[in-house]
């Protein structure tokens, strides 16, 4: 009955391209993934990058240089401990990126599972999950994080990630639930059921791929927030602590020395911003590439 004005009746159809070729065709993807790759490489093997300007060891410090601005051989200057800031920022990628990835992955898994269950099965599962989400939404998450991290015996990447996941998943799960709800009611899911597909198959083959887009984009956007939160936790005294090297710790220390040594704030911030931007763009590009309609 309803007929769309967007009927595509095009006769010639471009051949089905490989996902990879498809991705490489997008400048946004190429640039953002290249940057993300460099950052991940930096996180994986900081030693390769840290030595570019001569001072490669982030822990070779001379207190005499404490907080000094950029100097030859030290393009970013020195941190408060008199260590080479460039090497520290490079090494800082490790914890920050690790946390960002862990949290992103963890949040996504929980959100996809719980949001998916709530959206697909509805009923009491939905009621229960939704109430739990309510509590997490309403409860000041920073307070919760502080309490939990104070209880935790160690403050390392794992505990910090775990806490960020614990308080971060509801936002994603809510989005997931919404899009699963839409997909679950769609006719192609009914059709799949009609040919005898079981619940598992429907969830994995139809519901998940079709409801994942909004979550992917949101996740990309979240990466920045995660690194920022890591730093906020440090600021509140429950995150990673010196001598752990992370951008969050660096920003927190820098903030106290902002008046006398602004470069301490500026350089990690630049790295952070570039990382965030690249992940946001990557999320968008991946969503588009995985959607055959947008190819």
């Amino acid at each position, binding site marked *: 009955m309803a007929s*769309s004005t967007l009927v595509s*009746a095009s006769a010639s159809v471009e051949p089905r391209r490989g996902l990879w070729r498809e991705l490489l065709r997008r400048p946004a993807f190429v640039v953002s993934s290249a940057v993300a790759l460099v950052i991940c490489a930096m996180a994986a093997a900081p030693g390769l990058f840290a030595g570019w300007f001569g001072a490669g060891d982030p822990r070779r410090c001379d207190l005499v240089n404490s907080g000094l601005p950029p100097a030859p051989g030290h393009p970013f200057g020195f941190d408060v401990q008199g260590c080479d800031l460039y090497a520290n920022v490079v090494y800082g990628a490790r914890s920050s990126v690790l946390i960002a990835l862990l949290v992103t992955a963890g949040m996504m898994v929980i959100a996809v599972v719980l949001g998916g269950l709530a959206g697909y099965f509805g009923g009491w599962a939905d009621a229960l999950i939704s109430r739990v989400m309510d509590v997490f939404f309403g409860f000041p998450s920073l307070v919760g994080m502080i309490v939990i991290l104070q209880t935790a015996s160690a403050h390392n990447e794992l505990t910090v990630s775990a806490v960020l996941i614990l308080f971060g998943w509801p936002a994603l799960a809510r989005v997931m639930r919404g899009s699963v709800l839409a997909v679950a009611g769609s006719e192609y899911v009914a059709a799949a059921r009609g*040919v005898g597909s079981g619940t598992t198959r429907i969830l994995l083959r139809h519901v998940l791929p079709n409801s994942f887009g909004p979550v992917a984009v949101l996740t990309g956007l979240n990466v920045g927030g995660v690194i920022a939160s890591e730093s906020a936790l440090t600021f509140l005294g429950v995150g990673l602590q010196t001598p752990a090297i992370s951008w969050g710790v660096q920003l927190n220390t820098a903030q106290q020395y902002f008046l006398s040594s602004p470069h301490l704030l500026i350089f990690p911030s630049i790295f952070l911003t570039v990382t965030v931007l690249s992940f946001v763009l990557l999320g968008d590009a991946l969503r588009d590439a995985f959607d055959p309609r947008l190819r």
Partner: protein
Amino acid sequence: MTDTVNDTEMVLEVRDLVRHFPIRAGVLRRTVGVLKAVDGVSLDLRKGETLGIVGESGCGKSTLARLLTAHDRPTSGEVTVLGRSMHELRGGELRRARRHVQLIFQDPYTSLDPRMTVADTVREPYDVNPDLAPRGDRGRMVRELLDAVGLNPDHGDRYPHQLSGGQRQRVGIARALALRPEVLVCDEPVSALDVSVQAQIVNLLERLRETFSLAYVFIAHDLSVVRHLADRVAVMYLGKVVEIGTEAEVYESAAHPYTEALLSAAPVPDPALRGTRQEIVLEGEPPSPVDPPAGCSFHPRCRKAVAGCSASAPGLDPVGGGGHLVACHLADRS
């Protein structure tokens, strides 16, 4: 299990099928009313036969289609497919029984998974019913199916958005055919398509009927399409069948005032006949299925209605000889 079915056997029997949707409201989500989407429908369908179902929007056609294909459970009544009562089945049994009745959806745009290629979509029935086709044969069988519905093998690699509406509808049909069903329930399969494509699909359905000796339940509100395909036609109004009979009985000697109005309102594609038609324009809006009028539910809009029409609901009784049944007090039951 289908081996024993012979040509005249019933493939589908529907008895007093009722589907009420509860309307909930208030703090306790109490049921404050029911929406009688399907309200006591009985039908049967023989092998190779096509039953057309017509009726205006909202009269319960899609709900009926969903009940027939076990996409929904009836409030009461039963649907029997090849002698087995569908709503008593559960789990794996239900899934296997479902094979025999397949649904073709109205909207070819929303009934295909946008992220699956045509071949994957058509192949899915085999993947979930591995006993139907050995793994190695599936590719071939998919190609055959695509061929049967008039798609090139290279269409198999396409995604739905790369297909025209008619092509998509063919994919939907191929998917439904994959399980070799006895009955195809077509819920307005051509309403979203334009005439030239509609003709292609109608022809395809006809051809498939011949090759696979399928039985169709063909739902539409385009009377001419139904007439073209159907052996028998049921007219629905507000959740009930008000008239049922062979194509000729219904179209040539309609006995229900609603059927008459419906037939007269259908435009005839011939300017020469303009003005010659006795058009009965129904006044007023279709009543709500939540609160249907008392007695004959059509009486408020019926130009023939008499006092008795609002008092009692007419039964679906024969007019003339044979299987021509009408639910109207005023029908000539000679």
